[in-house]
């Protein structure tokens, strides 16, 4: 029986290490159950990212360069209409499913129709307003009910294409766990177990050159600390995890090979201020607060100097990914701690600093409660630093650590003083500003606002600008709309931007080289991103 065991082969490989040509990928996503359905957010394929090694999108989007056009992938041509309501695709020849059947335009139509027509939109997790989806030979045409300018990367770059001949027989694609996934990607699932998931490279039939990495081993670690331990010891070669003091805990374990790369993307983290609470409904006060926050301290102390790249531009747009979008007005304008400036601003606005206590116009001392769930230690550290910063202008802050459920509910209902939270991310700054300022998302205090605008920031101007930006058909309109948004964001400070998301990675060059880097950021580093396949395909054995 032993010789038939699937472990026989695996064990051998483990022993031979490098020669076996595998890559170990880890994510701190705790236990998984076998579920290879690429459409379900809770499937192990999604959680660990291996869905993108099996299934491929039509085009590849490089998160680190969000403004660039998508790289043709299963579609050899991607053409959007000017109003971003129609896309014309040419499906690549030569792509095959791992069961040998060719991939055709029919499959693409099937996939998007499947999403569009899924019951109650269960599969339409990006809420894409599909209209028509038709095929013509190897061409596919899709029309949408509204402009897809801000979401085009999701339609093309983040929707896996599945084989019609297999999926059309699945009773309920929303709950099927797809035990034997068949995709067009270079890898197929070999074994699945709690302890690890193994993907092996296809031997033939892939439409590009086959990857050098012959085997991918995914492990889901219970949490950051275990993931880190695995990274440090070399058990994990590639991961995306917050590493406190990465120099010492990770790099120093193997300085030659252990690398961290953390490019920012268009999604940020910041301090949402409840703008309905007095005196924080006063933009001047919020501005003053914005001026004293020491983002560098937060970056180095709370985010270990890399994880949420420091936001420098006053527009809240991350360095790199956001550069292209910064309005002329704010080009080069960066944050700097300016306590005196803040004091002056406050004095001008009628606040009084009495000793170490700031009094508002009514003479009441200004105090604020900062909340975030306890387990998010980077946010917690951030809050501690903010608390310290605010005390410089006499605002007494108190840090509260409700548990996650309570925090969630309270933030949505607007029952908070200020809180560190993230924004949605996307291919344009739209998602950032929308999460913070969209009046359409606003709900009255006490009613849960699930999608955004937790601070109840009321600005019809911003709402209009957001609409204009997403529906615009020309670059100029967009530019104006974006400039308006930035102006409101800077002047009203509805949320104080702190750091950006990153799609980087911690990786080891001991066995594999060719990773993306600042110098050549050809793909996102995070192994769960759709673009991760580009990374794997680029890897070569270390010399």
């Amino acid at each position, binding site marked *: 029986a032993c010789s038939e065991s699937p472990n026989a082969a695996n064990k051998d490989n483990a022993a031979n290490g490098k020669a076996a040509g595998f890559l170990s990928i880890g994510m701190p996503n705790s236990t998984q159950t076998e579920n290879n359905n690429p459409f379900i957010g809770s499937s192990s394929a999604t959680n660990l990212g291996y869905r993108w090694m099996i299934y491929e999108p039509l085009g590849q989007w490089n998160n680190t360069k969000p403004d660039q056009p998508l790289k043709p992938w299963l579609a050899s041509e991607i053409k959007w209409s000017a109003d971003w309501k129609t896309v014309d695709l040419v499906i690549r020849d030569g792509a095959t499913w791992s069961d040998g059947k060719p991939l055709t335009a029919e499959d693409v139509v099937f996939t998007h129709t499947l999403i569009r027509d899924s019951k109650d939109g269960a599969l339409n997790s990006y809420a894409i307003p599909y209209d028509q989806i038709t095929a013509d030979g190897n061409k596919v045409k899709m029309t949408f009910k509204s402009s897809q300018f801000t979401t085009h990367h999701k339609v093309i770059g983040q929707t896996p294409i599945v084989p019609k001949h297999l999926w059309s027989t699945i009773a309920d694609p929303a709950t099927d766990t797809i035990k034997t996934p068949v995709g067009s990607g270079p890898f197929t699932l070999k074994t699945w177990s709690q302890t690890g998931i193994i993907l092996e490279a296809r031997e033939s039939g892939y439409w590009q050159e086959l990857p050098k990495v012959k085997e991918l081993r995914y492990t889901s670690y219970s949490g950051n600390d275990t993931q880190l*331990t695995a990274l440090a*010891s070399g058990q994990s070669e590639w991961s995306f995890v917050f590493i406190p003091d990465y120099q010492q805990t990770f790099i120093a374990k193997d300085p030659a090979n252990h690398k961290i790369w953390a490019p920012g993307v268009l999604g940020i983290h910041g301090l949402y201020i409840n703008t309905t609470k007095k005196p924080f409904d006063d933009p001047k006060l919020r501005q003053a607060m914005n001026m004293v926050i020491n983002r560098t301290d937060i970056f180095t102390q709370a985010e270990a100097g890399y994880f949420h790249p420091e936001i420098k531009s006053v527009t809240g747009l991350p360095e790199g990914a956001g550069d292209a979008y910064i309005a002329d007005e704010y080009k080069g304008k960066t944050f700097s701690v300016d306590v005196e400036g803040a004091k002056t601003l406050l004095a001008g606005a009628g606040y009084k600093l009495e000793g170490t206590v700031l009094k508002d116009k009514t003479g009441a001392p200004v105090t604020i409660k900062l909340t975030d769930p306890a387990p998010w230690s980077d946010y917690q550290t951030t809050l501690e630093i903010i608390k310290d910063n605010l005390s410089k202008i006499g605002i007494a802050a108190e840090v509260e650590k409700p548990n996650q459920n309570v925090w969630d509910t309270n933030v949505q209902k607007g029952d908070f003083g200020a809180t560190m939270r993230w924004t949605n991310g996307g291919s344009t700054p739209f998602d950032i500003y929308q999460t913070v300022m969209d009046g359409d998302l606003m709900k009255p205090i006490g009613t849960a606002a699930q999608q955004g605008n937790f601070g109840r920031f009321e600005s019809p101007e911003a709402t209009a600008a957001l609409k204009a930006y997403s529906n615009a058909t020309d670059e100029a309109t967009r530019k104006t709309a974006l400039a308006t948004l930035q102006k409101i964001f800077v002047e009203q400070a509805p949320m104080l931007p702190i750091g950006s998301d990153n799609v980087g990675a911690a990786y080891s060059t001991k066995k594999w080289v060719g990773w993306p880097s600042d110098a050549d950021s050809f793909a996102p580093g995070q192994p769960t991103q759709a673009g991760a396949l580009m990374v794997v395909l680029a890897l070569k054995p270390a010399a």
Partner: protein
Amino acid sequence: MKFLLQRVAFYVFTAWAAITLNFFIPRLIPGDPVQALITKYQGQLSTQAIESLYVLFGIDKNGNVWSEYVDYWKQLFAGDLGLSFAFFPTPVSEVLSDSILWTLMLVGVTTILSFIIGTGLGVLAGWRRGSWTDGLLPVTTFFSSVPYFWLGIIAIYLLTGPDSFFPSGGGAEVGLVPAWDMYFIPSALQHSLLPALTILISSVSGWILSMRNMMVTVSSEDYITVAHAKGLPERRVALSYAARNALLPNVSGFALSLGFIVGGTFLVEIVFSYPGIGFQLFQALGANDYPLMQGIFLVITISVLVANLLADVAYLFLDPRTRKEG
């Protein structure tokens, strides 16, 4: 018979009450699984996904708790524990069966081992008072007062590393599929060593102490003196007379601790990222995954009850006095 019937009634009632509580308590948690999922992926999952997730999970936000309760019982009797949210759409029963074996293997074996070792040492310490075994007590007490997780983390820090024999976490070598073969089993054993040691170290003292105390108490019983007076070999007196009788009160404690295998030590599983059921429970808690929580609680409740039943039966075997006629 009467005894058994009473016990069965007791078990049925307790099971009902516990399951009912298990049903209601998770529902009191604020927030819902969709929110929990979104927050889990801070920013990595866009908020547009919310609606589709509600649909996907089939969560009716204004559901009637009572009808859910009735449905829950119907499902239970049909052997269906529902679908997990966190691992949607995996059925809870599958999540449980995936992880329960790990827990049984690690914590179960360790609990039994701890009982055996602790009882053994306790017998020694109680029988040979004043010998080296007396020194065991303060040491083990100290270790039992250390929180499991702390001990585990220290152990990981001190004993694991790139070249260490001890892996820092996980249930077995990555990529090995659970199977009774020469690859998986040794690897699983190797991975269970540290967590097992942690549990062992912190739980053994309870057994040593209670066994020692029982031994001391039993040792001064007349029948022990009689056994000595009969000139029986010391081993026989110590084991067949003293230890045998001293063991009786510990049996129920052991049964109880067997029942708590699942619930009691889940921090060890978390620390060692051991894919067991306790860890699963922790995740379920974080994800507001009611079906899974209920499933796990059900497993715990049933295992405690079964363990108690076993203790009752064991008593019948071990103590002739309970084996009254009738």
